[in-house]
């Protein structure tokens, strides 16, 4: 006999509100239904009532963790409509900020995953590492979360002390290689909770259109930084970690290896940071009529913005935001199928869901 267990929208296992109705037979999940939209904010439509400066601040609030990525994607789309090309130094600063944000996001996720595994000491270690990244982000931008770094044609703040970032990168790399990766891959607590759990096959990953680390952990080698490079990524040498297993361990490994790759990118970007201006001249922009699209590889995967403008208008005619979690979250249905009920919180967490992005 099957029975339904509603999980959420307010539940200790969920960080933010969404609802998962789990259809179970005994302790085994045989199907599930997801419900979102509990905090839907209508940001896309709100953007149509704001000018471009107000909209940058608005888009920064789509996500609390990838706030830089959202304004970067939005500004890249608007740069297409205003025919602006950011100077080389701004492109490098964008890479540095994007990779710092990836580090912050991945280390935060590793901490939360450790907590859900019942591995509290690892949670503390990850959050201590995360603080080092947050300190650097705050030192560059003056803020810990919404950095106000992007503008049309470049960035608002320069990086004046690359050496201090390098010091943090070295400390992070050392701790990841010495503690986090070995423990996550060899400790019995971690492997017994993650291996073979929440599997998403390569075929299912492709048909669901999943993105980012979830796709790469299911054997799909997709990463916009390589496939369609933006900012200064074409000048960076790095690898795209891919794992074929599609389980929680694979997602954990992909993110851990991506932390090391981000450190590699940061070293290169800091070493090659070119001199010069950090944004184009002028504050007034002439928007041409049309639609511009921009894509960026956020920590959780591809973010895409479509921005439509009519010449002479103060506000955009339309802004559409496709966030990574919106693409990945429907695949949870397939990941929890056949799983033990007790594993479902960790499986859900393994996609690093952002409900703020989803309820944009």
């Amino acid at each position: 006999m099957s029975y339904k267990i509603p999980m959420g929208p307010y539940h200790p296992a969920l960080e933010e509100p969404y609802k998962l109705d789990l259809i179970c037979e005994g302790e085994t999940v045989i199907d599930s239904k997801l419900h979102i939209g509990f905090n839907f904010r209508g940001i896309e439509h709100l953007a149509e009532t704001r000018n471009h400066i107000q909209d940058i601040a608005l888009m920064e609030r789509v996500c609390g963790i990838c706030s830089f990525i959202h304004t970067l994607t939005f500004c890249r789309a608007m740069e297409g409509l205003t025919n602006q090309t950011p100077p080389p130094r701004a492109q490098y600063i964008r890479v540095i900020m994007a990779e710092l944000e990836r580090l912050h996001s991945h280390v935060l996720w590793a901490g939360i995953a450790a907590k859900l595994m019942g591995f509290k000491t690892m949670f503390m270690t990850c959050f201590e590492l995360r603080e080092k990244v947050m300190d650097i982000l705050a030192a560059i931008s003056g803020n810990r979360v919404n950095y106000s770094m992007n503008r049309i044609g470049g960035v608002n703040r320069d990086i004046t002390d690359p050496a201090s970032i390098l010091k943090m990168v070295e400390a992070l790399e050392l701790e990841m290689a010495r503690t986090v990766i070995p423990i996550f891959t060899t400790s019995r607590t971690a492997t017994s909770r993650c291996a073979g759990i929440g599997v998403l096959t390569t075929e299912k990953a492709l048909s669901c259109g999943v993105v980012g680390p979830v796709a790469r952990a299911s054997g799909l080698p997709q990463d916009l930084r390589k496939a369609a490079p933006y900012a200064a990524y074409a000048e960076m040498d790095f690898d795209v970690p891919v794992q074929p297993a599609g389980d929680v361990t694979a997602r954990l490994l992909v993110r851990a290896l991506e932390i090391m790759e981000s450190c590699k990118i940061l070293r290169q970007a800091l070493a090659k940071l070119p001199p010069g201006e950090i944004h184009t001249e002028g504050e007034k922009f002439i928007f041409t009529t049309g639609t511009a699209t921009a894509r960026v590889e956020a920590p959780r995967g591809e973010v895409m913005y479509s921005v439509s403008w009519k010449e002479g208008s103060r506000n955009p005619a339309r802004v559409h935001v496709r966030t990574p979690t919106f693409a990945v979250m429907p695949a949870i249905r397939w990941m929890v199928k056949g799983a033990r009920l007790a594993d479902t919180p960790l499986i859900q967490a393994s996609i690093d869901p952002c409900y703020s992005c989803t309820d944009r």
Partner: protein
Amino acid sequence: MTPLESISEKLGITEPWIEKGGVHWLTLGAAKVRELAKAMNELHARFITITAYQLPKDEGFRLEYHWDLDGQLLGFNFQLAAHSIDSIYDLCEATDWIEREIHEEYSLDFQGREYEPLLLRQGDTTGVNLRDAVATR
């Protein structure tokens, strides 16, 4: 034959692709949407999203479908004469949530599928245009 030429051939389209801002565009009639989904499946292209545009006055809607083909961004324009278009959910399950979202926001009907509410609107109301709701506040 390039992948873009093969898509045109599968769809029986003679108009050229237009490259603009890094996106390769093709304008299609709404009747072609399911053929398009099948062609994208054959090429193992990754579905990204659908963007709905409400046109001025009573001109209806325009939909933009996006797929990624090995890093190439493809865009397909559909001008809707009526408030409906065939659903491609059965061919491409990645379209599930975005079809439901557009249905709830604009009351556009994706024919041939059932909807479960995404709860974007209180009381599961569909067809209440969010743009108009924001503008009148």
